[in-house]
C-alpha cells in the first residue's frame, strides 16, 4: 500500500480531477491518494468523482481556502 500526494493548488476546473484521474491510473487498489486543491468547486467535485469512479473518499476538509481530500483507490474489478 502506497501513499501519494498530489498538489493541485492553483489549478482550475477541470485540472484537479484530470490530474487525480491520471494519478489514480498509476495506483494499485488500496493505495491512498492525498490531494490538495484551491478550486472552490473541488469540494463538491471530489465527492462526485469518487462516487462515479467508485473510489473511497476517506476524508475531506477545508482550511484557509485549501481543500484537502484523502482517497482510497478501490479495486475496480
Amino acid at each position, binding site marked *: 500500500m502506497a501513499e501519494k500526494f498530489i498538489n493541485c493548488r*492553483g*489549478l*482550475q476546473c*477541470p*485540472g484537479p*480531477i*484530470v490530474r*487525480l*484521474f491520471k494519478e489514480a491510473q498509476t495506483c494499485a487498489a488500496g493505495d491512498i491518494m492525498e490531494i490538495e486543491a484551491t478550486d472552490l468547486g473541488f469540494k463538491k467535485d471530489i465527492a462526485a468523482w469518487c462516487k*462515479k469512479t467508485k473510489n473511497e473518499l476517506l476524508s475531506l476538509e477545508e482550511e484557509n481556502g485549501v481543500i484537502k481530500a484523502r482517497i482510497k483507490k478501490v479495486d475496480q474489478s
Partner: protein
Amino acid sequence: MDSNKKTIIVFSGDLDKAMASLIIANGAAAMGNEVTMFFTFWGLNILRRPEKVRARKTFLEALFGWMMPRGAGKLGLSKMNFGGMGAYMMKIIMKQKNVSTIHELLESARDLGVRLIACTMSMDVMGLKEEELIDGLEYAGVATYLGAADEAGVNLFI
C-alpha cells in the same frame, strides 16, 4: 444506454463555447467516461491548423477559408467580442486565474482518449480539407455520431 459514455456535438466556433465543451469533455473523461466529440459547421474551426496550408480550392471555398478563424487560437467570443478585444481580455484574465488555455484543453482531451470526429459533410460545405485540420482526428458523418449518441447517457449540443 450506457451512463459511462458521453457525446458532445460542437457546432459553435466561439471561444467561450469551445472552452465549455472541452472542459466538459475533459471532466467527463476524468470521471472515467468514454467521450465522443463531433465537430460540425463552425465547430470545425477549432480544429484548423494555425498555419496557412496550401490546398486546392474553388474560389468560394478559398473565400470561406479566408473569412473563418484559422484554429483555436483565433476564435472570438459569442458575446462581448468587440472585434477581438473581448476575446483578448478574456485570455488575459483566464491566464491570470490559471485557467487552461484552449490548446491545453484540446491536448488534454486527446491525451485522455476523447474521440475527436470531424464532420465530413460540413468540411465539404465549408471547403475545409483534411490537411488543414490538426492530427489525430476521425473523419465521419452523422451515422457515426448517432451510433455513439445512441449508447450515451448524456448528449450535448454546444
